[in-house]
């Protein structure tokens, strides 16, 4: 296992099945090369993503999280993603206040729909997260051990 200092950032993506995931799929179809250290959890709608899940992910030693949803105005669920945006932007405030850093959560609504944009978002975000100060002081040692299987 690579050491904590040199390892690639770990990024968790919550992708809405109807835009974000289609974008990811398109990136795959066009075989756009991407760093391998991100995982996608498909959700039915961006509104599905509990802020607690984001916090949990960061607490579990994941360095950055992305929430991808449909264009505002294009949500399949009658603008359910509006409320999601509001919640997550509020969560960013909290992350910012505590120094976890607002960039540890990327809200990407709409831009994820097209394959190249998905790739851009992922690449940019890897750079962004790599530039952030390490999260270790925040993550209890227990969790790190728990995670060290990868």
């Amino acid at each position, binding site marked *: 296992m690579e050491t904590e200092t040199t390892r690639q950032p770990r990024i968790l993506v919550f992708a809405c099945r109807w835009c974000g995931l289609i974008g990811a799929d398109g990136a795959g179809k066009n075989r756009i090369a991407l760093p391998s250290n991100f995982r996608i959890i498909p959700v039915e709608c961006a509104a599905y993503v509990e802020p607690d899940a984001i916090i949990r992910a960061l607490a579990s030693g994941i360095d950055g999280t992305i929430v991808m949803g449909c264009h505002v*105005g294009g949500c399949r669920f009658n603008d359910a993603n509006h409320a999601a945006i509001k919640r997550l932007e509020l969560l960013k405030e909290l992350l910012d206040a505590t120094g976890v850093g607002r960039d540890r959560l990327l809200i990407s609504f709409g831009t994820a*729909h097209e394959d190249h*944009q998905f790739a851009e978002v992922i690449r940019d975000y890897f750079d962004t997260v790599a530039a952030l100060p390490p999260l270790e002081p925040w993550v209890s040692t227990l969790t790190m051990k728990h995670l060290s299987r990868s």
Partner: protein
Amino acid sequence: MMVQNNEKNPVLVVGGGVAGIIAAFDLAEMGRTVHLVDSAPLLGGQVAKLDKIYPTDHCAFCPLWTDIKKVQEHHRVIVHTTSKVTDITQDADGYNVVIVCDPPAIDESLCIFCGRCVDTCTKGAVRPLWAHAYPPAYFIDRQLCAECGDCVDVCPTEAINLNRTEVELFLAVDEVIWATGFKEADLSTLPEFGMGTHPDVMTSLEFEEWIAEAGVNKGTITRKVNGAVPKNIAFIQCVGARDQRMLPYCSAVCCMHALKQAQWVKRRNPLIDCTILYTDLRTVGRGYNEYSLRELHESAITFIRGRPGLIHPLPTGDAIAIKYENTLTQTREIAKFDMVVLNGNLQTSPARKAADSQHIPPLNGEGFVDTMQDEIPRYACGFNLEPADIAESVIQASSAAMKVTIKEELQK
């Protein structure tokens, strides 16, 4: 090969655009067997070519795809893609239709999109069906194909067969719904609009494709001629429309279409100036007029009332000159633009081959389906009936489907 269908009172829907899809789905839900015919390899029609739709500013593809999937998966809808209605005759108990299907060389149901055919093809004849085709599949352009058969050998799933022949299909249907939509009229008869004189003079659908996020430029706006970022773009309205020489009617959708495109240009690159030359800004519909106001105030788009008298590239070729009169300031002006988008030349696409014996469906002087000629009800929706945007087409489609249903009930 001949196929004679024997379902109970089937309906034929000609055209797989939004209108056709909805009409087919509604009838299928009502228990009718529906044959949905489209000449393209995929359903979706013109809307599938759009990048964004007004007034929601949301991708055109997603919602359309939802409905396409619903139709494709409906057990009562039989979809005939890459097919054409070649002959249609009417008798006492309905229509007899001949459909000619030209099956694609690659069987979409077997293609796993591995792309080996693309790599082997020296002619570049193999390309993806459509950026948004799900499930993804490749498609061989027979014009470019040299029939070398290399792709057939490399295909792991034996999906490719280069010598498939046309299939003729004979259908007996109770009713036909015409939903063949529109196509862009040829502008060569109106030379003053300068179509074809410069690569950066293009029709709005070409422009839409050019700036599409799924398109070649991935959503960035550049000039065709040199790939540079344009300084300014002119959108010309009522090109060939509301014009006795070509299309006397108003194409209804172009004002909003231009507003939409201008707004997206502004969003992606605020430095590009957008100018719309219009006659009347026809923004009827929920949120449409507000949309145009938003353009005016936020996006800072220039509106000029006037129709250009001449559009011609400068001798240097680096810009296009437009000569017009601003009818609100009563001044004649000549302006230079980097790109010119021509909007409005939308005509209903032929519902049948011109060589047909009977004239089914009967068309009126402007090319729209005449629904009540000599008291025989005909059913049409979308641009076959009247210039209409997505919402209107869909409404007309459902209404046509209802009419067909009622007709059936009345006969009982």
